[in-house]
C-alpha cells in the first residue's frame, strides 16, 4: 500500500460499496419496480398458479375460453388408476376395485350425483359412507388448487382436458398467475387519475410557500436582526432558532400539537376571547396549510439564518463604517451593502431547500398526515401512503415505485444542475505528493 493509487482504491472501497448497494441499486430497482404490479396481494417474490374462482372467470371473460373455463370450474371425477390404487391401499373390498377397473376405467363425470349413482349400482352395493369415500378418491377438481409452476398446472389440467392447445396453455397460465407481472399501467394511471393533479398542486404550493416565506424570507429577517444586535443576545437567538432543527421531528411536532389541538394552548387562550375551542391543526384546510408551512418553515429557517449570518459576517466592516459616516439609514445599509452580497447564499439556500422540501414528508406525516381529506397530501407523502403505510392495508408497491421514480428523476436532474451551477469542480486541489 505504498503507492497512493492502491491505497486510495482500498480506502475508497467501503464508500463505493455503500453507494452501489444503497444508492445505485435502489435507483435502478425503483425503475424496475415501477413497471410491475407488485402489491400486498401479489407479494414481492414470485407467485403461484391458482385456479381460484376469479382466475376461472378471467379465463372465460378476458380470454374467451368458455369451454375450458366451464370444465375447470365444475367438480369433475375421473375413474383412473391413481384412484383405484388408493382404494386398494385403503382396504376397500377388492371386488369393487376390480369391477371399477374392468368396466368403468377412464369414465369421467362432472356431477357428484352421477358418479355416486354409478358406484351405488356396482354389484357389491357399497353402503352410503363407502360411496362417499370411494367418490372422494376420484375427485379431480382443480378449483382453488395451487401449483408452484406452469408444468404442474398443465399436468393437472390435462387429466381433465386431454387436448390442451398451446393457446389455451398460455391463457391458463396468464389467468391463474397470482404473483406480480410486468406492466406500464402504473404510468397510465398516474397521468389519468385526478389525484395526481391535486397532489402536484399541493406539492408546488407547499414548496413555494415554505421556501419564500420561511427558508429564505424569515431566515433573512433572523439573520439581519441578529446582525444588528450585540454579541450576547445574538448568540442566544441563534441557538434558540436552531432548536427546531435539532429537535427530533416526533417531539417537535408533538409540541405543535400541544399548541394547536382542541384541548391545546391556542384553544385555551382564545377561549377567553370567546373563540370556540377547536383543533387548529385539522379543522379546516386553510388552518392545516398554515400549520404545515409553519412547522416546516421554522425548521428550514435556521439553515438560511446560519448561512446568511456567516455571509454578512464576511462583509468588510469598513463598508458599514463608511456608509454610516455618509449618513446611511439601516434599511439603506441592508439594501445596498448586505443584500447584494447575499445573492449566492440565497441562490444556494433556494436550490438546496427546493430539493429537500420536495422530498421531505415526515413533518406533514406526523402533523396533519395529509388531512383534512387529503388537502395537505404532497407527492412524497402520497408515495408513503401508496406503497408503505395506509389504513386499508393494501400497499401498492409498483404504483408507489412509479410515483417515487418521478422524484428520483427530478432529484438526479436537479443535483446535476446544482453541481454545474456551484462549480464544485474547482474544489479539487492537485495532490502535492505524486506517488
Amino acid at each position: 500500500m505504498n503507492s497512493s493509487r492502491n491505497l486510495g482504491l482500498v480506502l475508497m472501497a467501503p464508500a463505493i460499496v455503500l453507494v452501489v448497494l444503497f444508492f445505485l441499486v435502489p435507483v435502478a430497482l425503483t425503475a424496475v419496480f415501477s413497471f410491475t404490479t407488485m402489491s400486498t396481494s401479489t407479494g414481492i417474490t414470485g407467485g403461484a398458479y391458482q385456479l381460484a374462482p376469479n382466475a376461472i372467470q378471467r379465463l372465460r371473460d378476458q380470454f374467451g375460453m368458455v369451454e375450458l373455463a366451464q370444465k375447470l370450474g365444475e367438480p369433475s371425477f375421473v375413474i383412473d388408476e391413481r384412484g383405484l390404487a388408493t382404494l386398494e391401499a385403503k382396504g376397500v373390498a377388492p371386488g369393487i376395485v376390480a369391477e371399477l377397473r374392468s368396466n368403468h376405467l377412464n369414465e369421467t363425470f362432472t356431477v357428484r350425483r352421477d358418479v355416486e349413482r354409478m358406484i351405488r349400482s356396482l354389484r357389491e352395493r357399497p353402503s352410503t359412507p363407502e360411496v362417499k369415500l370411494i367418490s372422494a378418491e376420484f375427485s379431480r377438481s382443480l378449483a382453488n388448487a395451487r401449483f408452484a409452476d406452469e408444468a404442474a398446472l398443465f399436468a393437472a389440467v390435462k387429466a381433465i382436458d386431454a387436448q390442451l392447445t398451446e393457446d389455451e396453455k398460455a391463457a391458463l397460465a396468464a389467468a391463474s398467475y397470482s404473483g406480480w407481472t410486468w406492466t406500464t399501467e402504473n404510468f397510465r394511471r398516474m397521468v389519468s387519475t385526478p389525484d395526481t393533479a391535486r397532489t402536484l398542486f399541493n406539492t408546488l404550493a407547499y414548496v413555494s410557500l415554505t421556501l419564500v416565506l420561511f427558508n429564505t424570507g424569515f431566515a433573512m429577517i433572523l439573520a439581519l436582526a441578529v446582525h444588528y444586535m450585540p454579541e450576547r443576545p445574538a448568540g442566544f437567538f441563534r441557538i434558540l432558532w436552531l432548536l427546531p432543527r435539532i429537535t427530533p421531528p416526533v417531539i417537535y411536532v408533538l409540541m405543535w400539537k400541544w399548541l394547536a389541538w382542541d384541548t391545546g394552548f391556542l384553544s385555551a387562550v382564545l377561549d377567553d376571547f370567546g373563540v370556540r375551542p377547536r383543533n387548529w391543526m385539522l379543522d379546516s384546510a386553510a388552518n392545516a396549510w398554515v400549520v404545515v408551512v409553519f412547522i416546516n418553515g421554522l425548521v428550514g429557517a435556521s439553515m438560511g439564518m446560519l448561512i446568511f449570518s456567516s455571509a454578512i459576517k464576511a462583509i468588510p466592516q469598513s463598508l458599514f463604517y463608511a456608509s454610516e459616516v455618509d449618513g446611511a439609514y439601516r434599511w439603506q445599509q441592508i439594501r445596498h451593502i448586505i443584500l447584494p452580497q447575499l445573492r449566492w447564499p440565497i441562490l444556494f439556500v433556494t436550490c438546496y431547500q427546493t430539493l429537500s422540501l420536495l422530498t421531505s414528508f415526515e413533518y406533514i406525516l406526523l402533523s396533519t398526515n395529509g388531512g383534512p381529506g387529503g388537502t395537505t397530501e404532497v407527492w412524497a407523502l402520497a408515495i408513503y401512503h401508496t406503497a408503505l403505510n395506509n389504513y386499508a392495508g393494501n400497499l401498492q408497491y409498483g404504483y408507489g415505485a412509479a410515483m417515487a421514480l418521478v422524484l428520483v428523476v427530478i432529484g438526479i436532474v436537479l443535483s446535476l444542475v446544482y453541481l454545474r451551477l456551484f462549480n464544485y469542480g474547482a474544489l479539487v486541489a492537485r495532490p502535492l505528493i505524486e506517488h
Partner: protein
Amino acid sequence: MTGNFRSWPVVLALSLLSAPLLLMYAYLIVDTITNSPVGSFVPNEFTLEHWSFLWETPRGRPNIWRVTLNSLVFATSSCLIVLAVSSTAGYVLSRLNVPGRSFFLAGVMVLHAFPAITLIVAIFLVLQMVGLYNSLVGVILVKAAIDMPLGIWIMKGFYDTVPWEIEMAGIQDGASRFRVWHSLVLPQVRPGLFALGLFSFLLGWSEFILPQVLAPGNQVQVLSVYLASLIADDNNFDMALFKSVGLFYIAPVLILFFAFQNYLMNIYGGGTKG
C-alpha cells in the same frame, strides 16, 4: 454590528417573535412534572406520575429501556460506520492521487444533494427480499449509507486544512502512505472526527422515517417510533405522558448540543438536510 444604531428595538422585536417558541420548549419541561387544573395552563401541583412509564410497561408496548437500548445501538452503530467510511474516503478525495478523483468528488456532491428518502420504496422491498426487514442491522446500514455523503464531504473539508508538510516529512522518514494517514494525519483531524461523530449520532437518534418504515416491530423499536405510536393511539390520549417520553427522548440531544455547540455550529451552518 456597529455603534451607530440602537439595538434594543431589534432585540425587543425578535424577543416577541421568539416568545411562542420559548413557550413551547418551556412547557415541554414544565408539563412533565406538574398537573394543571382543566382549561388552565398554570400548574398547581408537583407530580412524578407522568414519568411512571420508566418503571411500568403499558400493555402491548415494548419496555422503555429496551427501546432506549435499541435507539442507542441504532445511533451509535450508524455513527461509527459513517465515521469509518468518511475518514477513509474523505482522505482519498482530499489528498490521494487516484484516477477519477474529481469524478468521485462530484459524485459525493451529487449524492449529498440527492434526496435519498425517495429510494425508500425500493429499499423497503429489497430488505424484505433479503430478510433484513424488521431488523436493526438493515436499518442501521441504510441510515449510515444515507448520511455518508455528508460525512465524506465534511471530512474532506477537515483534511484539506491539514498542512502538506506533515505528510511530506512522514514520507521523507520512510513511512508508507497508509502509515502517514493513520499515524500522522488522522490525529490532526481528531476535532473533525469528534464533530462528525456527534453530528451523525444526533442524526441517528432523531431519525424517524427509516425505522418507522423498515423496522417497526416491537423487538427493534427505537424511541422515535415508540413515541410516535404512543401519540397515534387514539384510545389513550395523555399529553403529559407524551411530553415526558418526549423529554426523556430529547434530553440527550439537548445535553450534547449545549455541551458541544461550538463543534456542531460549523456543520449545521454548512448545509444539512431538513
